[in-house]
């Protein structure tokens, strides 16, 4: 028996307003994400994949539609509550690692947990645990510019999962990586989905990566076509 959906989005619409012209980016998009499942979204550039990801990640608000997380309508929440949800329930991995260059690997990974109110000791302990699982414990005290591309992206994943989120949203996580590192990153995400029962949504151009996911959603012109 399938678990109930972790996240449900219904009839999402979104448009940009630039220089007086309105551009529709998403048209009536509905999607469900389930725990422990890796879902990929593929489509040509400009079809609205990343926009959909940001809306589901509560980084932006749709013009209309509904988004429910654990059966709670999150669009009715104010900015403060949505910020808390992002901290506790969601994790982001972007094409670029976006690590804070002034902080060490350990400090970067511990950041979300420190924001969640945990003590420095507890946050660092969990950060070391997560880094250890990703094979990066020996890099804890280094700074981001001293790591390889693959290592940087794995640190970004560690940061995304430290608060044990229910959902990881990854926007082209392997976009800047070579084949070997891309496989490593995909492997990490898959392992997390299975072992931690986390739902993972990946936006990607990489068809090989997409097809290795549990579910593939195809988009074109702001709509889901398959």
């Amino acid at each position, binding site marked *: 028996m399938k678990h109930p959906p972790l996240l449900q989005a219904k009839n999402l619409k979104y448009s940009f307003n630039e220089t007086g012209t309105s551009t529709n980016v998403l048209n009536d998009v509905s999607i469900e994400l389930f725990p422990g499942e890796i879902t990929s979204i593929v489509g040509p550039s400009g079809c609205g994949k*990343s926009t959909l990801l*940001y809306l589901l*990640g509560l*980084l*932006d608000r749709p013009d209309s539609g509904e988004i429910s997380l654990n059966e709670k309508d999150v669009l009715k929440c104010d*900015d*403060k509550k949505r*910020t*808390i949800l*992002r*901290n*506790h329930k969601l994790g*982001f991995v*972007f*094409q*670029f690692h*976006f690590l*804070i260059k002034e902080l060490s690997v350990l400090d970067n990974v511990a*950041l*979300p947990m420190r*924001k*969640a109110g945990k003590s420095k000791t507890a946050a660092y302990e969990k950060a070391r645990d997560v880094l250890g699982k990703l094979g990066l414990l020996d890099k804890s005290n280094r700074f981001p510019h001293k790591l390889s591309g693959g290592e940087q992206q794995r640190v970004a994943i560690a*940061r995304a999962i430290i608060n044990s989120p229910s959902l990881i949203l990854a*926007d*082209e996580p392997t976009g800047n990586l070579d084949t070997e590192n891309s496989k490593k990153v995909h492997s990490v995400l898959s392992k997390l989905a299975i072992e931690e029962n986390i739902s993972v949504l990946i936006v990607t151009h990489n068809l090989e990566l997409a097809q290795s996911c549990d579910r593939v959603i195809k988009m074109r012109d702001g709509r889901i076509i398959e």
Partner: protein
Amino acid sequence: MAMSLIGIVLGIAFFVITQAQTSGFEAFFIRTILGTNGAIKISDRFQDMDGTVSKVSKDGNFQFFFRSREEAQYTEGIRFPDEIRNALASYQDITGISEVLEGTAELAGSSRSFPVIFQGIRYHDHSQVSELNNQLIAGAIVDFAKDPMSILVGNRIAERLMLKIGDRIVMKGGTGTLQLRIAGVFETGVSQIDKKRIYIHLSTAREFKGERFAGSFFQVALDNPDKAPELAAQIQYHLGHRSVSWQEREKVWLDVFKALRISSAITVSSILLLSGLGIFNVFAIMVIEKTRDIAILRSMGFSRFDASAVFLWQGLIILFLGVLLGSFFGFLGTYFISEIPLRIRGIFSTDSFVVNWDVFHYLWAISLASVFVVIATWVPARRAGKIQPAKIIRETL
């Protein structure tokens, strides 16, 4: 950021120092004035005044009157000093009353004579309305107090006529001549007084002038000299004698000091303003440089306030350190300046820089610095809080 902090420190320090200096000279001048000519001078009596408008309210509780001084006629001097004294004594704010008979005479020394203005006083009364005792630079006030035929002369007069304590001098004019003994030499620092004024006993002055019962004016001291204008107006209205407060008497000099204080405050405030602009500049650039980091932090669950708080805290730290160090250096600078030797004679007498220690100088400096730093910090902090993470991340990718 260090330069901005230095700017805040210097701005506060200089503000405190310049205000201490300018208000110091002003305060010293006021002390000198009050110590020589008193808080209020009550003199000539008004006769009928044309152009008087008087209205009384219907219930009789309020009265309005307007008198034109230009049409006023005066009777010179104080005709009934005892009555006036008793009336003045009923004012609670008045702490000292001295009757003075003033006139002109000529002092004849051994080789030359010199025109002077004499003031006949009762020493006991006059010591309560002036600093005469502290102004003595030679002789003893006790000697003057017990000898009705003694005289106190201004130091410039003493220099001109080469007078020493104990010398005899002849005063000519009035009803004849008087031979008086030099009991003391005073210096007020006000050159117009030191080169013209002498003090003799009131009884001696009356005999000299042939006015046995009259006086020229009353000089009064107040509990709070700042209340002099309103009290002078009341005295003038009730007693019908011209009453002039020290503020009115010295308006020109007081306006000069006020202008000096304000202009120095404006000048030094510009240092604080520039420092505030420096802080704004640094923070504004920091917000731009950290826009991406702020967007990522927002995606991790940091709130808008968290993004703003980084800059607000930095601004507060700069303000706190600036206030602490600025106040300290302001205090130190004020002290060192007060030790600088500076000889001034003319409108007052001093041999060193005069400063005024006032906590309000520090409060004003801190308030100004706070306004500039808060504005300089708040604007970029607010901008940091308004960063839209999705838009920034999208643009970065």
